[in-house]
Structures are given as C-alpha cells and as structure tokens.
C-alpha cells in the first residue's frame, strides 16, 4: 500500500522551465507530494573532471532553488538552502527545490538520495508545524480540563479529544521516520550514503527530530493527564449519582418500614 507521504511517480516537466545558464541535457523532474505540493529536482549532467564548471553551476542552482522555496518555512536552526560539494559533484537542497550537478553516471544515484532525504525532511517539517500548532493549544486545552472542567463539571470538549489524537498521531509519525533520521553512518560509504549523511547533518535533522519528539511526548503526557482527569471527574460524577440513588432508596425503604409499623399498630 502506498503511504500518503510517498512521492508519486516522477513526471517530466517541459524544458522551458529550466533556468538560463544550465547546459543542454539538464532536466527538471517534478515529484508530486499531493495536496498541491511538489519538489522540483534540477538534474545537470557535467563531464568528469569539470569540477570548476560544476562549482559555478552550483551557485546558480542554489539561487534557483532558494527563489523557488521562498515561501517555505524552515525550522529554527535549519538553513533555508544547503549546497554540498561531494567529490566533484554538487548537490543543492531547499524545501521545495533541489539540484544535482554531477557526472552522468552519478546523477540518478544522487537524485534518488536527495529525493529520499527531501521526502523525509518534508515529513519532519510537517510534523514540526503540526507540533507547533498543537503546542499553542496545549495550555488552553489543559486549562479547560483541569480548571474549567472541574468548576463546571462538564465532560471534556470534543476539541480536546481531537488534540489528544493529534498528539498521538504526531508521536507515531515521528517514530516512523526515526530510522531514516537516525540512520547509522554507513561504512564503507556509498555516494548516496555520503550525501544523505551530509544533508542530515547540515539540516540538523537528528536534533530537530529529537526536539519534535520531546515536544510531542510532552503533549501526549499532558493530554493523557487531561484524559485521566476527565475520566476521574466522570467516575466521580457517576459515583455521586449512585450515592444519591442509594440514599433515596434507603429513605424510601425507611418510609415503607415506617408505614408498615404504623399500619400494624393501628391494626392492633
């Protein structure tokens, strides 16, 4: 089954979109991530040993990538774009665009590694954003349960339940991407593993993932406590209802007994 985060099959975009200054043979692949979002990958083949050429093209590519990702928010501490010289090849990443300037024989390997990284980074970025908005709600939600809930004796609001589910969902998603984010360094390395390690390092993926996980853990705990509190309140409410019922039954029983005693006396 395809994960909703998996990229769709690559589709070629017509040549005109290739920015000026790149040699013929360059191509752009659009990776459709759904929800009207995509990652554009510029592939620039250079001949072997043309490192100086690759180096100047990488500056152009970075400009192109940065302009294309202008609107995207990146996490604190993560640069808006990254340029990685990799043994004669150059790789650029930004949230919505990437470029590989490499010998023809390496283009596909590096493009695949960059795509996999971009996908993982995007998933993390989404989770960070969801975590941010959840974090903004945590305090009010907690207050509504722990303070307001107690005073009004109202059952928890549906919104809080939603937040609790959201916190669990964020935490679960973070666990899913953890093996990608914390992948051990491969030895002997491959070109793809070297690129992935450097991209993870430069975008501080592991630290960001740890931070997002800590925050999600916190939210899960808070909502768990809220749930517990709401549950306790519900139990307490039920208990007091039961106590009243017992009291009423007892009173009824006593009244009946009284009636019985009185009627037996009048009968005598």
């Amino acid at each position: 089954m395809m994960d909703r985060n998996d990229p769709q099959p690559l589709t070629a975009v017509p040549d005109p979109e290739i920015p000026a200054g790149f040699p013929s043979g360059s191509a752009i692949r659009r990776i459709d991530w759904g929800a009207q979002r995509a990652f554009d990958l510029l592939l620039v083949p250079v001949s072997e040993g043309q490192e100086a050429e690759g180096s100047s093209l990488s500056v152009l590519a970075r400009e192109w990538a940065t302009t294309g990702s202008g609107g995207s928010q990146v996490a604190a501490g993560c640069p808006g774009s990254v340029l990685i010289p990799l043994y004669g090849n150059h790789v650029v990443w930004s949230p919505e665009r990437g470029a590989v300037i490499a010998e023809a024989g390496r283009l596909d390997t590096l493009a695949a590694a960059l795509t996999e990284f971009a996908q993982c980074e995007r998933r993390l970025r989404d989770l960070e954003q969801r975590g941010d908005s959840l974090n903004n709600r945590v305090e009010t939600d907690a207050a509504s349960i722990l303070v307001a809930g107690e005073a009004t004796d109202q059952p928890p609001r549906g919104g809080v339940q939603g937040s609790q589910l959201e916190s669990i969902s964020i935490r679960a998603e973070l666990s899913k991407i953890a093996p990608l984010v914390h992948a051990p360094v491969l030895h002997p390395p491959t070109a793809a593993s070297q690129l992935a390690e450097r991209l993870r390092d430069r975008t501080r993926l592991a630290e960001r993932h740890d931070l997002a996980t800590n925050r999600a853990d916190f939210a899960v705990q808070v909502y768990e406590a809220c749930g517990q509190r709401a549950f306790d309140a519900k139990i307490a409410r039920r208990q007091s209802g039961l106590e009243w019922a017992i009291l009423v039954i007892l009173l009824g029983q006593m009244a009946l007994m009284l009636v019985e005693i009185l009627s037996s006396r009048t009968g005598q």
Partner: protein
Amino acid sequence: MGKPMNRTVDAPLISQIRQGNLAAKPPRVAIVGGGPGGLFTAWNLEHQADSPFELNLFEGTDRLGGKVLTPVFSTRGIRYEAGAAEFYDYTPVGEDPLRDLVESLGLHPVGLAGAGVHVLEKRIANLDDLCDTLGPDARKKMATFDNWARSAMTPREFYTSGTDGSCHAAQPGPFHQALPGPVGNGLRRYIETMIHSDLATPASKTSTAYGLQNYLMNDPAYMRLYRIAGGNEQLIRALAERISAQVRLSTRVERVVRAENGPMRLEFAGPEGPQSEAFDAVVLALPLEALKRLKFQGGELSEAMGRHIGHHDHPAHYLRVTLLTDQSPQPILGDDGYLMLDAFGGCCLYSETAIEPGARHGVLGWLIGGEAAEQMSLLNDQALVSEVLNTLPPSLAHLGGRVVESRVHRWVGAVSAVPGGWDSLPEDRRHRPAATTQPSLLIVGDYLYDSTLNGALESAEYAAGWLAAHLQSLRAGNG
C-alpha cells in the same frame, strides 16, 4: 610543586616539623619531557596523589608541548598544525579519557572527516567510485575485506587493543600478509594508501593488529576524529596553566644515575650550566629516540633500559609540508578535512580550513609518512614544496599558483611503527622496565600503546596511579 605545601600539610608532617625532623622533606618527583606525555602525567599525579610531594618537570626546549604544536604563518598570522593534527574519539565504543579531559578543560572539539582516496590519478571516495575505477569485482572484494577486518577486530576489541596488547582476534605477523588474497593490485593499493599515513610505515613493517586498527579507524562505528577549535596546542596551554609543577624549560636531562638504596640522580644541562639533583621518583616521558640518547649509569639499570629500548625500537617517520594559499579549497573539498593521496607511498593531505566555514584562505598540509618521509627529510624546503605541489589532484591544481607561504616540519624517528612491540608486555613491565633495581623509575610513552595522544594519556594515567600509591607508601614509611 606537585601539591602546594600549604594545601597538604598533614598530621605526620606537622609532627615531624614539631619534632624538628625537617630532614623528612616531601618526596621529590621528576618528570623528564614536557610533551603531552609529561604534562598528562603531571596533571594526573596532581589529581591522584593525596600526600605532599615536590614535582619538577624538565623540558629540553624552550616550549612545552613536544609534537603537539600549532604555529602561525608569519605573513597572515594564520595557524596550522605542525605535529599531531587529529584527536581520536572512542566514544562510539566506550569511555574516552582524552575527550573527557579536553572537554573538562573547557576546550571545544570540532569533528573532522574525510573519505577521498586518490589512487592511480582517480579519486575514490566511496564504493561507487571504487566500482567505476577498479571494476565491480573490486567492490565485492572490498566488501569481503571489510567483513574480514570487522570480524577480526570488533569495535570493543579495537577499543581495548592498546591496553591488553595486540588484538587476539587478528593473526600474528605483518599486516600485508593479512590482506586477504587475491586482492587486485588496485584494491591493495587503495587500502594501503588509505592507511599508510597513519601507520607511517609500509604494511609489511607493521603488525596485523596495528594495520587493522588503522583501517578500521575509518569506520565511525569504531572511532571518530576531532580537532580542538583554536588549534590543538590549546590542550598544552590549558594543561600548563593548571599544573603546579616547577617547570624547567631549556633544561635537557642527559643522564640518569642509579644510587644504591636511595634516590636517583638526574644530570642535566640547563640555563645555569650542567647540574645534578636527586629525586625519589623519576618519570621519563620521552619518545624512544630521545630515550635512546639518555645515558643510564649503573650496570643493571642500563641493561634493563637497553632491553626496554630494544623491545620498542621500531622507528617510524613523518614529514609535514604545509602551504598557506590565498584561495580556499573548500568549494572543491566541501566538508572534508582531509583526503589521502597515493603519492609518497600514501600520504594525507589536510585541508585545515575545513573547520572554518567561509574562510577565504586555504591551509593545505601534507603528512608524509614512512620511508618516503625519512628520505625526503634530506631535501631542502623549496624542493619539498615543489614535490608536494606536483601531487595536487587536478581539481586542486589551481591552488599551486596561490601559495603565499610554506612551512616544513621534519619528524624523523618520532613515532613507533610497532607500538607495544611485536610481543605485548604486561602494563607494569612496560612502565617499569627496571622494576627490580630502580622501582620508582617510570616510563611514559605513546609507543607503549598506540603511538597516539590517547596512548600517551593512558600511559600517563598508569604511571601517575602507580606513583600516587608509591608516594602514599613513602609517607606511611616516614610516619
């Protein structure tokens, strides 16, 4: 002074002073050699000993630090590493006392990495490059060799190999015999180039265990590398500031004289001319070449020291040529702090500005090792500079025209090709080679372990621990 007297005046000492027995002075300890080994020993002794002693540190030159030195180019005041360039970080496997020390001194370690190996005019930085350059068969053979190496020495065995002698898992004999055959010539050259500059000797002249260690250290699961921000010599300065030993610079110890049933005497030449002083304990924290030049008086003592030197006498050589350029190699080298070249039998080319992102200049340092280093040390500086420039890979060749200043440092016989010797000795034998005649004469050296700063620290810790206990027993005897 090791422990300042006012800090450590205690009951037995006070009673001795009260009784007018001032002859019972605190024991005198001498450390000969103000390199990392000597400084580590002083630092550890001052932390471990809990009885008063007087500590003297003799250094033959006018600076502390030995082979850890970070000079500056005169034209631009930019620093470079002239000796030890990298620190080994064992934290992926276990405790790392050197890293702990570096951090406890408030110094900042900065990671260092590199994967490029230039062989047969091609750069091999990963398995894909290996496949392109040497063919798909080489990739398979590399995987087989790597598996063999990892099973011959696990990260844990690698970690403990310095302490408990060579690795048990690795077969005895020289490393080149251990390279699994048939390994294509290209692959063999690739592996040898990868490790040669760390070995500082050909694969045929080192043990399988040491060869394996130098191959496996490239695997981050075994070890990582780092430098100290601001230059490795920061470590020396930080230690020198914190020890309270009396440091005697420009004072070369020449002779160790054995005294019957009493302390040892050191004869030395300092700023005030030749002198001699008696010490209760002496630590010789010297590289083997310096130890060979010392004279030992007293039949059994000189015999014991002769045996020690004979066991460890496997000199290996280094030569460093460092160039300051007015253009940075970083756009080409990226994050890599070094790459290996197959020139000079395999040498390491450091890009020292890799840890300074955005630097406009470049510092390229060639670390040439082994026989090539020994032979080339005879060349003059200018010839050496043109030799190294010829080895620049094509992608960096343009930097040859951007050289602003060059420096050469010759380190002939400065390290050991077979640290620990061919047969590993028990730790006490390594450190107290004349234990029967001169029990309080201790040796500290990186060559007793692995020829690195970690080895020097491990050795210093052993010696300091022994001495601390010895000082305690001397005090108990006096009391």
